[in-house]
């Protein structure tokens, strides 16, 4: 049965019933996103590959307990991924892994306009994010660090997508103000 074009809800439903083909399709849909999330926290290809694989192993084991209550499936995978990254750091250093403070990886090859962005020190930006308060920090964290869509964030925070965009706007403005002050 070709599951390629099945709507995601149907795929997830079948996966919760231990349909291997459905879960494999879910893997195909989400592997890049999971990898990107894990890589942003480990900055190491080998670790990212190992943890990404473990995310799907764990997700398969636990898929029967996934409840479709409107939670974005991605949110469920993020929790698994986050916990595995956590364990990964704990085993290595016996310390609590950092959340927002994970190193941002170096920018990929970009055009000339991207070079202007080099003046914004990533370290400053990262520190500035940690100083945002409440919803602003959470929206930035979910949007830029964890790769949630506006729709997903709006469900998680129980706000409209418009409201999320407004929070994002204000958060970016605050960040810019903090960065401009620190660089004066």
């Amino acid at each position, binding site marked *: 049965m070709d599951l390629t074009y099945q709507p995601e809800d149907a795929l997830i439903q079948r996966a919760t019933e231990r349909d291997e083909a459905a879960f494999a399709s879910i893997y195909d849909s989400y592997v890049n996103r999971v990898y990107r999330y894990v890589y942003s926290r480990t900055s190491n290809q080998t670790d990212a590959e190992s943890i990404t694989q473990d995310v799907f192993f764990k997700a398969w084991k636990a898929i029967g307990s996934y409840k479709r209550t409107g939670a974005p499936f991605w949110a469920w995978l993020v929790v698994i991924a986050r916990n595995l990254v956590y364990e990964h750091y704990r085993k290595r250093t016996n*310390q609590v892994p950092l*959340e927002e403070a994970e190193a941002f990886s170096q920018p*990929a090859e970009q055009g000339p306009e991207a070079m202007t962005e080099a003046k914004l020190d990533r370290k400053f930006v990262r*520190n500035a994010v940690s100083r945002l308060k409440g919803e602003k920090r*959470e929206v930035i964290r979910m949007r830029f660090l964890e790769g949630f869509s506006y729709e997903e964030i709006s469900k998680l925070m129980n706000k409209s997508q418009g409201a999320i965009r*407004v929070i*994002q706007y204000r958060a970016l403005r605050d960040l810019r103000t903090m960065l401009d002050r620190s660089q004066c």
Partner: protein
Amino acid sequence: MNKEDLLANCIDEVDSGKYTLEECLAKYPELRDELRPLLEVAQCLQSEKVTPSPEFRMRARSRLLQEMRRPEPALRPRRSILDWLRPLAPALKPVVAVALVIAGLSAAGSTTIYAAQGSLPQDTLYPVKRGVENLHLVLTPDAADKARLNSTLAERRVEEAVAQAKLGREIDASALQSSAAHIDAAVKEIAAVKPEKAKELLGGLSRSSLNQQLELDEILPTLPEASQKAVRKAIETTRRANLIAGTAYGNPKFLTTSPSVLDDGIEAAHFEVEGVFLGDDDGNWNIGGVLIKNVQSSQSAPGPSESVRVEGVVRGEKVFVSEIKHKEERKDKSVEAAIAPPQPTPEQVRAVQNPDLAVSADRKEEEDDEKGIEVKGSLAGIDQERNTISVTMSGSKVSINLGEASVRDAKGNALDLPELQALQGADVKVTGLTRKDGVLSAKRVRIDPSLRQSQAEQQSEKYRSTSKQQPEEKKPDKNDSGQSQVKPGRTPVPENQRPKPTAVPAPTPRPDPPEERENDKEQKQHQDESRDD
């Protein structure tokens, strides 16, 4: 479309590569100046567009298919929350109200709960995280599981504080302080379980407390003054937790006193006494002239004339002995018998209370150090290759690197690693413990294989030169009012009441060689710690 939506669209379009930043801004010239700086920040935040290699994708997919096709182990039928609740229905009525409130908090459903898991104090979703934890606690019926959960939650509060510190955020003092309540709750639950299980849980609590102490100690110097107070308080809490766990591990009866990490006086109530065991008078022990009343011990009393070190905690009118360590037997027992003083009568016995008692140079040196993290236990193993030792404390093993440590025996003689091989099982005290990159290191290690070179003996040597009197009865120090002087932290007691036991090590009869016994100076058996004016 408003500017917030325009910004969001631009971010997505630039991120997807559909447009460059300039192309996007060119679409909205009237907002160019406003949007440009925000888009620059957003670009900085964007994580790298890494994608896994096709080889990895295929390899991982293949492994996943293998994993999916592996037969599952037989699982117990999954219990729903109703299965949990049914047998507990009568007891849970008051709980149901709480559960409903918490369910209301998570009215957004498990979505919010998922998102809340990684939140820190002051985050919007943090109350949801705490609400879920409380619900979990309420719905955990088994005392041992509850104890473990409380212990985990105490750790989690510390981990949150550490995460806040590393993010440069102010520590949320109230969240951190709630770890104390979790530890107390864990101790209370442990008191309700069977002794064998209790020991395992206490060992875990001891380990966890030490870990928390190390983590907090590590971040303390990096914190602003405002946050340091809360962290210092939390360090005290973990120290007390370690003391409670260690004491209860050695003497489960201690748990019946409902010890609390919030009790400021509990550390002052801890004592160690070394000396010759002179007698057990219906639960009152006499160790080198120090009377310990109402002893509660899970071990039997030492034998008469045995040299011992006894450790414990005073609670109310009772003394809970947590550890009795026996000194090595002397080769010449007749010497001991000859020098051991006769059993004193109750009228002759006085508790020794002398806060000014000179301590050994060793201990003074340690006290001069900044108050650091300490571990006491027994030497369990040595790894010469890694230059580490293992110390057993409360049933747990801790591995400590000796790289820069001063390792000495109780006399102050330096010991090197090969020498330690022969000292396994010896009493160990490690001070100045720190952790870096996951490795525990110590500043100072003291090993006493036989308790022979006790601190009391060193004190005796010090006082021998100044004292000309033969020790008869020890009398308590008296202050000007005529009351017995007590160790700081304890209230004075009337003269006609037996004073409480002291945390001062008792003098030990010096094992004078027979030929020296004739020397008056050498005959001073007990340190004269207190005199009448």
